[in-house]
């Protein structure tokens, strides 16, 4: 039984890609085969964390879904680039080189089940345990599509940014789509905050589980941008928080 988990944030700069990469690495370290769909290959994101040069990227998920190429050509095994040995596997799959192509599939009369079938095929071909979808910020059609087919949705927010409204909308919309599990991750929490208090307030406000409260540290941010954090700095407290979050995802 494989899980599709969408990772979303209403705004950019919340640390969504970083969280995704660390989750993938954690799950792989537990022996899982993990697929990561990167919806934003154009701007620096997951491929940077996985040390994958955009020039290496040729085919994308759409090409596989349309039968234009075998999965091997759309999925890039980045396991060796995680920065440490893991029992599992991590594949990076760019969703589409051209933004909005998936949505066009829908508009052209294809239904969502096509994507579902496609993702199922991907899971099957790559023998994935978990498929993580790193979505676009905001709620465009493509993002809604990912959320719709997900078993779980992780919404990442920052407490110091005024994106409460957008986060609330995302959660409400996800509820409308009957996503079985919705959870919040509060990232880049200023260290002066009482972490437990933040967790409680956010959970109350959105009536939603808070899977993790991750403190902000400039020093850690510098380290984090240079690779997959939990692989490089497994002993630092931030890695412990990522591992705990990974465990929550594993139990979904």
């Amino acid at each position: 039984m494989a899980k599709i988990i969408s990772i979303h944030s209403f705004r950019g700069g919340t640390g969504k890609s970083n969280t995704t990469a660390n989750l993938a690495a954690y799950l792989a370290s537990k022996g899982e085969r993990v697929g990561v769909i990167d919806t934003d290959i154009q701007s620096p994101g997951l491929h940077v964390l996985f040390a994958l040069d955009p020039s290496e990227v040729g085919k994308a998920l759409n090409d596989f879904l349309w039968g234009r190429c075998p999965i091997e050509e759309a999925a890039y095994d980045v396991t060796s680039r995680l920065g440490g040995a893991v029992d599992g596997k991590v594949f990076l799959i760019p969703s589409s080189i051209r933004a909005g192509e998936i949505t066009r599939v829908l508009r052209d009369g294809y239904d969502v089940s096509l994507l579902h079938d496609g993702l199922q095929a991907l899971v099957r071909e790559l023998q994935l345990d978990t498929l993580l979808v790193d979505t676009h910020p905001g709620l465009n059609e493509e993002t809604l599509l990912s959320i719709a087919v997900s078993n779980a949705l992780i919404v990442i927010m920052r407490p110091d940014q005024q994106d409460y409204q957008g986060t609330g909308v995302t959660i409400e919309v996800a509820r409308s789509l009957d996503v079985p599990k919705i959870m919040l991750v509060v990232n880049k929490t200023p260290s002066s905050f009482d972490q437990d208090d933040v967790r409680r307030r956010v959970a109350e406000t959105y009536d939603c589980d808070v899977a993790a409260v991750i403190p902000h540290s400039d020093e850690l941010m510098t380290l984090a941008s240079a690779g997959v954090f939990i692989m490089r700095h497994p002993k630092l407290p931030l890695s412990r928080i990522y591992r705990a979050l990974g465990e929550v995802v594993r139990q979904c």
Partner: protein
Amino acid sequence: MSTVPVESVWRLRQAIGDLRRAAERARADEVAADLRKMQAAADDLLTLLEDLPLRLSEAKGVEGRRALRHDLRTPINQVVGYCELILEETEDRGDGRWAPALAGILIDARDLLSQVDRLGIRALVVEPADEEREAQAAQSGGWVALSRPIEAGDRGRIRGTILVVDDNRSNRELLERRLRRDGFDVLTAEHGARALDVIAAHEIDVVLLDIMMPVMNGYQTLEKLKADPDLRHLPVIMLTSLDEAESIARCIERGAEDHLPRPFDPVLLRARIGASLERKRVRDREREFLERIVAEKRRADDLLHGVIPIGVALSAERDFNRLLERLLQEARHFCGADGGVLFLQQHDRLVHVQLQCASLSIAAGGAGEPVDMPSLDLKVQGGILRPAAKAALYGATVNLEDVHDGGGLDLSAVESFDRRHDYVTRSLIALPLRAVDGDVVGVLELWNATRATDEVVVPFDGGMVDVLESLSRLAGVALHSYHRENELRQRIAHLEIRIDEVNRRREVSQITETDYFRKLRDMAQKIRDSTETGVDR
């Protein structure tokens, strides 16, 4: 070898006696009294002259001859001195009756003096002629202006207290009168040992020191004075009856400022005293400046090595209670204050946040025991203020050197504290702690500064006040920054997650009430229904 003609002395005595009688008849009592003293001096000289051949033969060596010459000159000098004094005093009063006779006596007395100097005592140096003396005087800086005739207006221009040390009572009196006439304050001593006592008890500006004296002579006295670091700078002018190069050189070598040959030329006397006083004044000022420079340097060092690092440390202190505790501790440390209180201003009140007293072993406030004292209301109109309230309201330091003087302040709290703890508060200082914008954020109050050397309670002096005011400025800024940071933290901690429900629903419906979304939801539902638990692998 020439001799002093006794007849000349007799004539001089006769002339003095005639004038005295005339003065007595004219009821010029003061003149008559001085003439009697002159007559007594002439009698002393006659007595000496009768024994002169014997004394000359007995005079052993240079010292003996010197002593003899000294004895002979002393009465003549007194005649000259009194004569000059009477002349000046009567002239001042516009009384010219005595001048011609006095002038004649003066000429005779001076002539007699030169005859004494011409006695065949070869070891003695002949006193310089008057022209020479004047030339000397003109060379010495500072008294050219004084060499003109004395006028009443000049007197008292140079002030100072002069100690006259001479074993001869008449000499002392003569000099004292002359100096008082010139506007000086005068103290006298009959020998060196007595002079040292007077110097210890009074503020003396110049010492006029005779050389030959019993108990302690002039050389010994000079040595004692110059060996004492506190008295080394006191100018000493030697009174040299024996006007000889060797004796003068000996005194100058030992630190004498100058010398005055007898009989005293009034102009020369005033000039040399004036010059000595001026030099002393310059030296005193120099010393004062030096002390001030040393004090300034110490203060700068205190600031650099003490206050500034503490100010920085206070600003870096994250624990507020610890910040308050340290602030009071460091302030007390700088002036050895036995105790103190730190107040923080909260609205219109000063609240005690720290109380420390070393001798009573009290340390309250902060994280420990709270300070059990009522806060001060700053809104109270009129009436007398407590020191801390005054410091807060006026934004200025309140320094009470002696609490019991009151200083127009309400000291009931201090008295009550003293009563309760069987304590005695003597000195007290209250300093406002101000933020960068000048607002008073608190008050630092310290009591009983103690001297490090003997732990005696002293007032908070200028140096301490400077350092404490610097520390207070830094502390004020540290406190203010802490408050601001804390406020910010609280504002962040109280982060309100506000969601506009109406807007949210509208935004949600804009998404969910589209065909696309409905289709999406239906499809998702179908998928979930078909797989129920997820995607098959």
